[in-house]
């Protein structure tokens, strides 16, 4: 059940809420008021390659806006005894039109001091900061680098962690299993996963060195509104070809069914395997920190292909200020079949040899190209502690989207993003 709440009086929520303990219920919450603007409005125009293109970043635009990344949550933890508790978190974000929803709801059971089970709807622990991705106060950036952090969702299932230590070394081993369904409003798509199995290992030496590694496998289904009716896509491609060649409308319609059947195979996003691997290392001192995180995604899917991304970041504390710098890189590789189709479609002579195959190759590889992204960025940021519960942040991110395949022009170029944030926890 969803309840519509407006986030406008955020400061009222923060000013009046406080940590309260009634019986065994503890209330906590967080607020992220995030605003920003781009130097250039995003331009991604396939039809006008000579037009100056600029990449996008979340849903930011040239005008200052708070909507893309502002969010807040209230969380209640009810303790039953020393071993069991239940956690519920209600979350709202500007990206989802500030609709409040029950993001997490799970039972925590600790049979021993080493073991913890969480059963229910939990945050999917994919990346280093996944568990508290939405708690802006908990890290230095306005948000973790989007090139790496492409996955923020709650997963329904079961999670088990075993923690222990040897001398100075704390370590943990975690496994989780489950699935989820999530609507992605920005691209009008639904994502469903099942049979997710993941294992995570962490090690911490004296609190100054933290290491993490994760492997993950899932079966996914991706339903994009734009791909719901491939017949419409084929009709558009044939109509464009007829106009280009000066043919009467309908001349090429006899190719429709053959092309559509091939496009349906290539754009099938039902039940495909997704595999992740992640590794991170963080060195932290009272004064400075440095960190790197790397992720790779492998699929056997024509449209998704593969992805590699990493970031390198560091910062130095000067009193209450923490200036920091971050480099990121994201590389997408098209599936080998999509690369072959793109090469086939680039040779217009093939349209006379096998027009059905030619049109299908052009449509399929064109869609696959829209799934890939190659991007670098550099971010200069400043975090300032205004109190032990609030932080103010400023960030400037210069980013460049590069061609994922030869001849790609849509959205290829540079842009600059300025963001500022107030993060609070209570």
């Amino acid at each position, binding site marked *: 059940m969803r309840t519509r709440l407006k986030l406008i009086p955020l400061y009222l929520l923060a000013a009046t809420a406080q940590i309260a303990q009634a019986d065994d219920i503890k209330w906590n919450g967080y607020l992220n008021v995030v605003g920003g603007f781009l130097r250039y409005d995003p331009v991604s125009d396939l039809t006008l390659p000579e037009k100056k293109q600029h990449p996008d970043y979340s849903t930011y635009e040239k005008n200052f806006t708070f909507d893309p990344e502002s969010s807040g949550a209230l969380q209640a*933890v009810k303790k039953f005894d020393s071993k069991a508790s239940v956690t519920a978190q209600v979350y709202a974000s500007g990206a989802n039109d500030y609709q409040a929803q029950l993001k997490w709801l799970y039972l925590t059971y600790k049979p021993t001091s080493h073991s913890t089970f969480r059963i229910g709807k939990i945050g999917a622990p994919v990346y280093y900061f996944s568990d508290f991705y939405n708690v802006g106060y908990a890290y230095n950036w306005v948000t973790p680098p989007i090139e790496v952090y492409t996955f923020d969702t709650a997963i329904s299932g079961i999670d088990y962690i075993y923690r222990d230590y040897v001398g100075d070394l704390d370590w943990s081993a975690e496994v989780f299993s489950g699935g989820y369904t999530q609507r992605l409003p920005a691209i009008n798509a639904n994502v469903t996963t099942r049979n997710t199995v993941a294992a995570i290992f962490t090690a911490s030496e004296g609190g100054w060195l933290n290491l993490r590694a994760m492997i993950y496998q899932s079966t996914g289904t991706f339903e994009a509104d734009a791909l719901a009716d491939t017949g419409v896509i084929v009709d558009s491609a044939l109509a464009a070809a007829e106009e280009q060649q000066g043919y009467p409308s309908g001349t090429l319609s006899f190719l429709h069914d053959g092309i559509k059947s091939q496009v349906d195979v290539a754009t099938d996003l039902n039940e495909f395997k997704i595999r992740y691997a992640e590794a991170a290392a963080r060195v932290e001192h009272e004064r400075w920190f440095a960190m790197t995180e790397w992720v790779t995604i492998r699929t056997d899917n024509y449209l998704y292909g593969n992805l590699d991304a990493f970031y390198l970041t560091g910062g130095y504390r000067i009193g209450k200020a923490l200036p920091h710098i971050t480099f990121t890189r994201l590389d997408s590789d098209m599936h080998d079949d999509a690369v072959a189709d793109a090469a086939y479609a680039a040779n217009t002579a093939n349209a006379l040899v096998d027009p059905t195959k030619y049109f299908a190759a052009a449509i399929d590889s064109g869609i696959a190209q829209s799934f890939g992204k190659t991007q670098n960025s550099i971010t200069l940021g400043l975090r300032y502690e*205004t109190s032990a519960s609030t932080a103010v942040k400023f960030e400037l991110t210069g980013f460049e989207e590069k061609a994922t395949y030869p001849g790609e022009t849509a959205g290829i170029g540079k842009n600059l993003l300025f963001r500022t944030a107030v993060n609070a926890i209570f």
Partner: protein
Amino acid sequence: MRKLALYCAMAIGFNLHATAAHAGEMAIIVNPAAGVDSLSSDDIIRIFLGKSTSFPNEMSVTPIAHKEGTAIRNQFDSAILHKSASQVKAYWAQQVFTGRGSPPDEYASDEEIKKLVASNPSMIGYIESSAVDSTVKVVLKVN
């Protein structure tokens, strides 16, 4: 402009905690019946960061702390946990919002903490060394 003004008001509108003068020698205390003669700083770090819920002798432990922003609290966070107040807050934000633990309950004075530790065998706290008496046992001293 109004959006920006509202934003700035939020940024400065939260409570500011004054930093008090540095405290003197600090004693980590437990109940005499806890069966603990001494603890290493690593043991204390684990207990106060919620990584361990028992003493090395397997007895259950409950840490309690001074209130945020007090001199002795800042001293403990720096000298024992090797973290600033904001780093401790960020750490507990990570634990709380993943349901993996909650920070120690906070109390206002050495007397209150000493009284609680003296009457609860599972509790561990810290007070000024000068406040120590026979009702509690010192397991570590810190300057």
